[in-house]
C-alpha cells in the first residue's frame, strides 16, 4: 500500500493524480473609448466617478452602442489564436444584482460568441503542449467596489466607483487541456505575449487589465473521466497562479487520498497565507437568465471584414522567433529572449537596419542595455539615447574607433540624458588608440617600466600579462585597443 498520508508532498500527489486545468482570461481592450459609450477606456488614475456618462452609469432611458474597434480587436485575437469566426454573432444580457453592475445586467455573449475552436501551442520542458481555446468573446467590465476595512464578509458598508464600468473586456476560455501548474503558467505567459504583440491588451496583471481564473480538478493517472471542478480566483501574478494551482493539487490530492469528495466550489487565492480559501456560502446560486440583447442588432461579420482584420494582424511571437533565426542567424535562445517583448525585437531590427551586425546587436541588447533598462526602469526606446544613439555607439565599437569598455561607459553616461556618441568621442579624445606605431611605443614603455611583470610572464605566469596590459590601459586612460595591446606584448616578449 502506498504511503498516502495527510501530508503528501506535491511530487507524491502528482505521482498518483493528474491535474486537469482550464484557464479563463479576461483582458481589457486597448480601445480609446468604452464598449458601449464614449467615455475613456483609460480610467486608471482617474478620480472616482469622473469617467462616467448616463450610459455607463446605467441611468433610466439610456442605450448602448457597440464600439467597432472592440469587435475588431476580438476578431484579431481570435485569428491569432487560430479560432473560427462564425458569420453571425450577438450580444446577450447576463442578469444579476450587484452594486458594481449598474444596469443589473452585464452585456456579454452567451450562445453565439464572436469566435470559437482555436488553440495555443507552446513548449514546456521541451515538450510541446497544444491547449484548445473554447471561445473568445466580448463583454463589458463592471465598476469597482471598495469595502470598508477591505474584507468583504466583515464590511458594514462599501463604496462604488463606476469609472471602469463599461470598459471593453475580452474573455478567452481555454479547454481543460493543461496538465500542471507549469503548463498553466507557460500558457498564460504565451497568451499574454500574443495579446501585447497584437496590440489589444497591455498585459498588466497587477493593475487588473489582464486577469486569470482557473478551473482545476484531479483524476487518478490513467483515468479519463473528470473529477469535481474547483474554480480558483484572485491570482494577481503568474507566480501566484503557479503557487495557487500547486496548492490546490496538494489540497485535492490529500482529500482524495482520504477518500473524501472534493466539493465543487469557488476558492480565492490568499497570497499572504499561501493558500486558497473557500468562497462558498452564496445563499443564492446565480441563474443568469441569458437572453439576446434587444437594444443591439446582431453582428454579421462577412469574409471581407475578417480578411481585413487578418491582413492587419502583426507578426506573431512564434513567427518572429523563427524569422530572427532565419534572417539574422540568431540562436533559438537569443531569438526567444529578444522577442519576449515585441518592442525589443523591433529595437533589434532597427539596429540591424542601421548597419549593426546581428550578433553584436543581440549581445548589446541582451547584456548592457537590458541591465541599464532594469536599473533605470527606462526602456532603450524611451531613453534619451534611444535606439538610434545605441546604433551609433555600437557602430563606433565595431568600427574600432573606441574599445569595448569605453563604449560601456558612454552607454551608461548617455543612456538617460541622450547625446551624440561620436561627437563626445571627438571632444574628449576618447578614440581608441589603435595606431600601430603608437601602440608599439606604449607597449615598449610598459615593458621597460615593469620588469617584474615581464620576468613573471616569461617565467610562465600568464596573468602577469594582464598587469602589463593594465599599464598600457592606464597610460592611455583606458582607450587602448586591449586586444591589440595584448597580442603586441606577446609578440615583443616572445623574442
Amino acid at each position, binding site marked *: 500500500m502506498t504511503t498516502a498520508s495527510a501530508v503528501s508532498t506535491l511530487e507524491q500527489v502528482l505521482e498518483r493524480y493528474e491535474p486537469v486545468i482550464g484557464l479563463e482570461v479576461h483582458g481589457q481592450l486597448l480601445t480609446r473609448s468604452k464598449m458601449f459609450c464614449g467615455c475613456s477606456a483609460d480610467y486608471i488614475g482617474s478620480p472616482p466617478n469622473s469617467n462616467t456618462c448616463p450610459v455607463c452609469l*446605467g441611468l433610466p*432611458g439610456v442605450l448602448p452602442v457597440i464600439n467597432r474597434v472592440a469587435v475588431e480587436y476580438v476578431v484579431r485575437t481570435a485569428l491569432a489564436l487560430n479560432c473560427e469566426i462564425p458569420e453571425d454573432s450577438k450580444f446577450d444580457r447576463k*442578469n444579476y*444584482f450587484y452594486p458594481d453592475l*449598474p444596469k443589473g445586467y452585464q452585456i456579454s455573449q452567451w450562445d453565439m460568441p464572436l469566435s470559437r475552436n482555436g488553440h495555443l501551442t507552446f513548449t514546456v520542458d521541451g515538450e510541446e503542449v497544444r491547449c484548445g481555446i473554447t471561445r473568445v468573446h466580448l463583454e463589458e467590465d463592471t465598476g469597482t467596489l471598495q469595502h470598508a476595512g477591505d474584507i468583504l464578509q466583515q464590511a*458594514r458598508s462599501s463604496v462604488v466607483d463606476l469609472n471602469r464600468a463599461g470598459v471593453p473586456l475580452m474573455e478567452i476560455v481555454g479547454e481543460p487541456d493543461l496538465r500542471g501548474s507549469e503548463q498553466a503558467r507557460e500558457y498564460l505567459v504565451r497568451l499574454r505575449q500574443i495579446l501585447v504583440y497584437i496590440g489589444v491588451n497591455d498585459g498588466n496583471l497587477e493593475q487588473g487589465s489582464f486577469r486569470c481564473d482557473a478551473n482545476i480538478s484531479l483524476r487518478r493517472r490513467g483515468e479519463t473521466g473528470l473529477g469535481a471542478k474547483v474554480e480558483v480566483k484572485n491570482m494577481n501574478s503568474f507566480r501566484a497562479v503557479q503557487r495557487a494551482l500547486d496548492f490546490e493539487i496538494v489540497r485535492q490530492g490529500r482529500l482524495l487520498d482520504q477518500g473524501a469528495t472534493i466539493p465543487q466550489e469557488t476558492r480565492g487565492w490568499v497570497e499572504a497565507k499561501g493558500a486558497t480559501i473557500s468562497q462558498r456560502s452564496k445563499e443564492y446560486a446565480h441563474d443568469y437568465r441569458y437572453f439576446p440583447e*434587444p437594444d443591439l442588432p446582431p453582428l454579421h461579420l462577412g469574409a471581407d471584414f475578417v480578411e481585413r482584420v487578418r491582413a492587419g494582424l502583426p507578426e506573431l511571437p512564434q513567427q518572429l522567433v523563427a524569422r530572427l533565426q532565419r534572417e539574422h542567424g540568431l540562436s533559438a535562445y537569443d531569438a526567444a529572449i529578444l522577442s519576449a517583448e515585441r518592442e525589443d525585437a523591433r529595437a533589434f531590427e532597427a539596429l540591424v537596419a542601421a548597419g549593426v551586425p546581428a550578433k553584436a546587436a543581440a549581445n548589446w541588447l541582451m547584456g548592457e542595455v537590458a541591465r541599464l533598462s532594469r536599473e533605470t526602469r527606462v526602456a532603450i526606446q524611451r531613453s534619451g539615447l534611444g535606439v538610434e544613439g545605441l546604433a551609433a555607439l555600437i557602430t563606433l565599437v565595431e568600427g574600432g574607433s573606441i574599445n569595448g569598455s569605453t563604449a560601456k561607459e558612454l552607454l551608461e553616461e548617455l543612456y538617460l540624458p541622450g547625446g551624440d556618441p561620436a561627437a563626445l568621442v571627438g571632444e574628449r579624445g576618447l578614440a581608441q588608440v589603435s595606431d600601430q606605431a603608437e601602440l608599439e611605443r606604449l607597449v615598449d614603455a610598459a615593458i621597460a617600466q615593469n620588469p617584474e611583470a615581464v620576468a613573471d610572464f616569461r617565467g610562465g605566469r600568464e596573468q602577469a600579462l594582464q598587469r602589463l596590459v593594465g599599464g598600457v590601459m592606464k597610460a592611455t586612460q583606458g582607450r587602448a585597443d586591449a586586444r591589440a595591446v595584448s597580442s603586441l606584448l606577446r609578440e615583443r616578449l616572445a623574442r
Partner: protein
Amino acid sequence: MSSDTVAGLGARLRRGETDPAELAGRARGALESIADLHPVLRYTDDLAERQARRAARMLAESPATAGPLCGIPFAYKDVLCVEGVETSAGSKILQGFIPPYTGTALGRLLDAGAVPVAVTNCDEFAMGSSNENSAYGPVGNPWDGSRVPGGSSGGSAAVVAAGAVPFSLGTDTGGSIRQPASFCGVAGFKPTYGRVSRYGLIAFASSLDQIGPFARSVDDVASVFTAIAGHDPRDSTSSPTAVEPVGEQLGKGVAGLRLGIPREYMAEGLEPGVLSAVQAAFALLEKLGATLEEVSLPSTEAALSTYYIIAPAECSANLARMDGVRFGLHIDRPSLTDTYLETRGQGFGPEVKRRIMLGTYALSSGYYDAYYRQAQKVRTLIAEEFDRAFEKVDALVCPTSPIVAFPKGAKSDPLSMYLCDVLTLPVNLAGLPGISVPCGLSEGLPVGLQVIGPRLQDARVLRVARAYEQATAWHTQTAPPRAGAGRLA
C-alpha cells in the same frame, strides 16, 4: 382650420395675434382647470419659460425657417427624460429622479421651438391599459371623469382630448398610444419600430417601445412625427433609412388603395357600438375610392401570449437598474440584499411586480425554451403573416379597441385588462406603424379606427387616416364641456 390645432396656433403666432409665452400660460391654465382628471404630474415652468423665449427669438429672427411646432405648447409622458426635470415613470421608485441628460425625441422638439408645459400622468413604467396603475393616482377621461382614459399614456391623451394643449407625446409598447387615443377621441400614432429614437425613453420593453404623438388632427400628428423621426446614432435600433417626407403623401386620399380588414380582429368580442362605428368607417373608405377586402392573420390569438412573455421578460431586465444605489428610492436596511428587496418591493406597484416576476420566470433556467424562445418564434410567424397580408393590400383597417372607455375599477383582474390590447399589440410585435383616429361614438363615448401599415410606410398610414378624418367631423368633436374647464384657444 380649428384654431386650437398646431396649424391654427402657428398661424396666429405668425400673425402676431399671440406669442409663445402667452400660449404657454393659457395652456397651463387650461391644464389646471382639468386638475380633477389628474392628467398632469408636474408643470415644467422653468423649461417652458426658456423655450418660450427661444421660440419667440426663432419666430422673430427667422420666421421662414421656424417649423410648425415653434412656439406651440405641449405636454409629454412621465417616461421621457429631460435634463433638469423630474421624471418618475409614474412610479414611487423614481420619485425625485432628475435626469442629467435630454432624450433625443424631446431634444428635437425643443430644438424645433416647441414649449413643454407639463409632464403627464401614466401607468407605472408604461404598464397598463387604463392609467389606473400610476403610483400617483388614476387619470379620468375628459368624456366622463368616472371612466378611464385608457393607458398607459392616459394623461397624454386626456390633455389633448380636453383641448388644453394641441399635442402631446406618449409611448406605445402594446397599444399605449392608440388605445387611449381611441378612448379619448383623439388621433394617436405609433410610428414604425425604430423610426423614432428611444434614447431618453425609460425602457419598458426594448424591442416593442416607440414614442409617438397625440393630436386633434392627422396633420398635427404628421408635424410632430416629422420633427421627432429619423435615425439617431445613440439608438442602435433606430432605422438608418431616411424618413419619407410625409407632407407629399398626406393629401393623396385613398382612391385606388387596397385596404385589408383582418378577419380575426372583427371577431374579438367587439362591443356592438364599436362594431357599427367601425363598419360605417369601412363603408366611407369605400365611398372615398378604396377597395376593401378581408385578410387573415391566423396567429392573432397567439399574439397576446407572445406579448405577455416578451414584454415582461425584457422589462424584468430593464427595471433591474432600479436598485437604490445610484438614483431613486432607497430604503435603508443594514444589508444590501434587504435594501434591494425593500426598495424594489415597496417602490414598484403590483402590476410592475407582476410583470417583472412573469418575465423573470419566462427567462429562468428550465423555462427559457418553452416560454421566451417559443414566443420569439411565434413573433416571427406574426410578422410574416402581416408581410403576406401586405402583399395583397396597402394597409389594414380595423377597430383600435374592442370596447369603449370603461369605468375606473371595472377591470380589477389583470388578465381581463391585458385583453384590452388584443387589437393593438400584434402591431408592436411586428414593429409596424399604426394610428388610431376617432370614428364615432358608442353610447356617448369615443370609438377609434385603427390603420396599420407595412414597416417604414408611416406616411401611407397617415395618408389613409387623414383621408378618412377629413371626410368626417369626428375629429372636431370635443368632450362635453365640464364645469369650470378652460380651453386653450
